[in-house]
């Protein structure tokens, strides 16, 4: 699964019909995906979608036809060679994708990462990179 960050600019959706059309254009391809985050910001609506790797192209096309802005966000990668198990990233992770195991070593569950990228600039060893 890959996380994509979709922005529906303010002008694009004036009412619920516009919104439904965009979502229906995706759903007609019969793909199941997860909505990780739905937020309204000053420039429009942003969605974080967790999409199966082989369906990314179809979804991207369907969204781009509707003028949505797509930004593929990778989940993060941890360079365990450089990690010193300090924990500076752990309290920042909203989904517990980064956590300390019973031995106090850092563990990372990629599936739980929703690519918020809050952790990236917290690591004193530059061991967290956006994919």
């Amino acid at each position, binding site marked *: 699964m890959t996380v994509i960050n979709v922005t529906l600019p303010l002008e694009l959706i004036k009412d619920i019909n516009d919104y439904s059309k965009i979502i229906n254009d995706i759903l007609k391809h019969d793909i199941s995906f997860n909505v990780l985050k739905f937020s309204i910001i000053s420039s429009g609506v942003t969605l974080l979608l967790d999409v199966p790797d082989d369906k990314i192209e179809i979804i991207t096309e369907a969204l781009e036809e509707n003028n949505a802005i797509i930004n593929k966000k990778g989940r993060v990668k941890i360079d365990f060679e450089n990690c010193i198990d*300090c924990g*500076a*990233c*752990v309290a920042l992770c909203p989904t517990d994708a980064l956590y*300390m195991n019973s031995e*106090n070593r850092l563990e990372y569950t990629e599936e739980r990462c929703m690519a918020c990228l809050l952790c990236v*600039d917290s690591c*004193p060893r*530059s061991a967290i990179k956006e994919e």
Partner: protein
Amino acid sequence: MTKTYAEINEKIKNGNVVVVTAEEMIKIVEEKGITVAAEEVDIVTTGTFGPMCSSGAFLNFGHADPPIKYEHLWLNEVHAYHGNAAADCYIGCTRMADVRPFEYGGGHVIEDLVAGKPIRIRGNSYTTDCYPLAEVDTELTIKDLNQAILCNPRNAYQRYVCAVNSSDRTLYTYMGKLLPRFGNAHFAGAGALNPLTNDPDYETIGIGTRIFLGGGIGYIMGEGTQHSPKSRFGTLFLKGDLKQMTSEYLKGVTYPKYGTSMFVGVGIPIPILNEGLAKKTAISDNEVLTDVVDYGIPRRDRPILRQVSYKELKSGFVELNGKFIKCSSLSSIFYARKIAETLKKWIKNGEFLLNPPAETLSTETICKPLKQISELKFVKDLKKKAIICYDDCDIKIVAEKIIQNNMNHIVITNRAKILLGIVTSFDITKALAQNKTELKEIITKRVVTASDNDPIEIAARKMRNNNISALPVIDDNKKVVGIITSEELM
């Protein structure tokens, strides 16, 4: 029951010494009681591995031919301090590289040196009759140095605070990245494993104490800078031969938007000379207390929000005003434990003997703040009257007020003077150009504010960082009590 250093060392040599880590000691005392534990256990080992900014190393390069007296000196582009004799220098871990600041610094140079990597040395000189060479540019490894001495004026804090952030923006600090509105909490230090925590009255710790330092053997030179025993913030001045250390326990780090530092591994053996020490070394995370401090207030004396135990800190959450905030450590508990275990192994194998300090650390030292000659000025001293319009007023009235008062910023409030937004003369011009007539269409609602007791420097930094020229001054209830603009700061 009492034991002496000589008796304990004899046991080390005979191979029948009993050494446990500070964490293991807790259980032993719990199960067997203090008297038996003091009888049975000879040494308790401790450990900590965290960022220690007051760290660095003295290096001696040997003389060039012809000789040079360095004036400026860079190791892998990190400026080293050179105020000593010709071929000595001090490389400090927070000094950042000229070319890659916030990426590489003195701590990384020390890590690379210890790892055996080649380091580029570049230096220049004003030249003298005895030191005629003007420039050096060479590469060397730690083996090529005459001396490489880790020398850290302030390490191994007895405990440290837990940092949170009440402000409405993300802060990048030496306590890591702190999310706004109490989004997370960070603490440092290993709690019950921390060296000074296990001998809080410094009965066995002092000048000359042999310790684990950076994976090798080091010594305590005395109390560290800002040593503050009465508030249980004791510190240590440490030294050791870098040549026998390992890069596993000396790691250069960089905190984004703060700067570089170095993780230093420190472990101290505490000899159980009497029952009192058995009791003290059995201290648990539950009993090591520290303060939760609000780093959102940029002052020396930041507000203390509550007391908290290391047990709660290590649980992953701290409670604040009924809410649970995600909490994590900045120092590695895994490596702290590994250091205590390694030191234990060294002693068991007879490779490490204990020695009494020449003089124990002071329990009296007081840590004073900086004496500042110029008086600190506050926002309340320099603010002026804010020109206020209510949110239901006409744009035209706002424009008139700008002209009448010769002010660029009009503060928008409700009838109770509670801050709602700000409008600048530029916003009015823009409204005119875009045919906007409603005040609410042009008002900026996300306003950066100041409060009466903010030092002027803080207000200036807010303006600089946000690229703005005025801050409404508000009280705790968001009521507008004035405005401070860049003009007052000139």
